[in-house]
């Protein structure tokens, strides 16, 4: 391959990355200044970070509550989705023919549906059933769009797994419950973990579904908080350091996972 092609390719990738990361970098940079509006540089300062952590900002309780809600909902939804999805994946793996196709089809629907459809349809469900909306309905809604991804991540592990290891455990005297705990779960663990992480991040990221299922009790997650905040005009300045911190955490987690994974793969070869 010609060097010019190589240079062109490199330049293309890096320019694209530059553009992709510009807004994020923009937020991070302006989190270190005190100005209220983005893009207004008034000198380096960590005041916004301090405000965020010591709670001395306006309406700090609202933002902190939103962060807390976001994390709690994500945790609850991804734990339930991981358990439900793993059991479902084992079941679907052992189904045959039409039943398997039906389950696979149903499992695909939440993944194909845009968020707004999931949100509206669940909103109508809760209205129809007369369930008052709040934490529970948001968590249920998040479980609905997370579980398919757990199924999807556990399924390949089932396919790679020697189909006889469950039976081998029974054969050696394990009851079905013991076989599940001591053999199946360890074998499926990598898929369960990636399903869990995927669920957790998707739940953190969600806006539309939460927006429609949170009801009118004033429940806010970070996304709905930002939305309301932005519509009021003018973001709460402390969101900038908060976003920067979240971005940093996600960056580190994803890089660690991926580097570890590619290491494992190269170890095996």
């Amino acid at each position, binding site marked *: *391959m010609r060097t010019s092609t*190589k240079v062109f390719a490199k330049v293309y990738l890096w320019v694209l990355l530059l553009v992709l990361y510009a807004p994020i970098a923009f937020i991070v940079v302006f989190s270190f200044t005190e100005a209220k509006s983005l893009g207004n540089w008034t000198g380096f300062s960590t005041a916004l970070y301090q405000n965020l952590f010591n709670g001395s900002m306006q309406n700090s309780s609202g933002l902190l509550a939103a962060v807390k809600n976001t994390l709690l909902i994500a945790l609850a939804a991804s734990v339930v989705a991981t358990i439900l999805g793993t059991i479902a994946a084992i079941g679907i793996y052992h189904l045959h023919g039409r039943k398997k196709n039906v389950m696979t089809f*149903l499992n695909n629907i939440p993944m*194909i549906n*845009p968020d*707004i*459809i999931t949100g509206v349809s669940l909103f109508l469900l809760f209205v129809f059933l007369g369930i008052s909306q709040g934490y529970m309905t948001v968590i249920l809604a998040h479980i609905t769009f997370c579980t398919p991804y757990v199924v999807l991540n556990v399924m390949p592990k089932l396919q790679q797994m020697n189909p006889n290891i469950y039976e081998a455990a029974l054969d050696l005297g394990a009851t079905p419950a013991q076989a599940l705990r001591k053999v199946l779960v360890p074998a499926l663990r990598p898929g369960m973990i990636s399903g869990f992480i*995927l669920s957790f991040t998707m739940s953190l990221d969600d806006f539309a579904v939460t927006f429609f299922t949170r009801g009118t009790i004033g429940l806010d997650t970070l996304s709905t908080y930002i939305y309301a905040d932005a519509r009021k005009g003018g973001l709460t300045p402390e969101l900038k350091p908060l976003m920067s911190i979240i971005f940093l955490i996600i960056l580190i987690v994803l890089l660690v996972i991926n580097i570890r994974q590619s290491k494992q793969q190269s170890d095996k070869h």
Partner: protein
Amino acid sequence: MNKRSSWALPYFIFLVLFVVLPLLLILMYSLQDASGNFTLSNITKFFTDKDALGTFALSIEVAIENTLLCILIGYPAAWILADNKLNRSAVTVVLFILPMWINALMRTLATAELFNMAGIQLGKGTLLFGMCYDYLPFMIYPIYNQLKKMDKSYAEAAQDLGATPSEVFRKVTLPLSMPGVWSGVMMVFMPTVSTFAISEFLTNNKIKLFGTIIQENINNSMWNYGAALSLIMLVIIGITTMLQGGEKRAEAEGGLI
């Protein structure tokens, strides 16, 4: 062994309750008036409502433009990323997927602020740019995946049979990577049509997309009309999914980690 298939049962019940029933409710509500009587007026209302039809057409237009833009910019990127000679680092790939994991609202707000600072008027141009920025990773990743798992010997065989590099690309690599492009289209097109909030931020509320009018109707307690608009969206999803098996999107997204 037979018993383990029954483990799918709880999830089946869950899916019926939280996926199938809600979708049926969209159908039911869209065929009812506010007092619960059967009517087609919600559907006919859409087809006679100039504003709604205009928004719908604009949404489809923006979605098509955005999808094309994403392919145009994303395909070369995916191709470079998947080529061992041009890119050896897995980290570069992660850097391209990473923005997917950051709250889309935050990223959109930041983009809009960036435009503001640069003094660029918010409008259709910034909407397209912002959308493309938001959805580009969803196009790059499935194409990259498809190219990466493609057997190198196809390209080698084509070369062996006398194809020039550009012919190899046009006649072998491109057709074989089409499934990836289609998954990318699935992940970009429908979400673009249905976004709300994002389009508001990027155009300072000047341009409404279809998602926004659904949201407005639901929020203003016009559930039946909101449901009817959702139904129209569902029909389009049904059609695009039929055209291109729905598992694609699922596979592509599920493989992110």
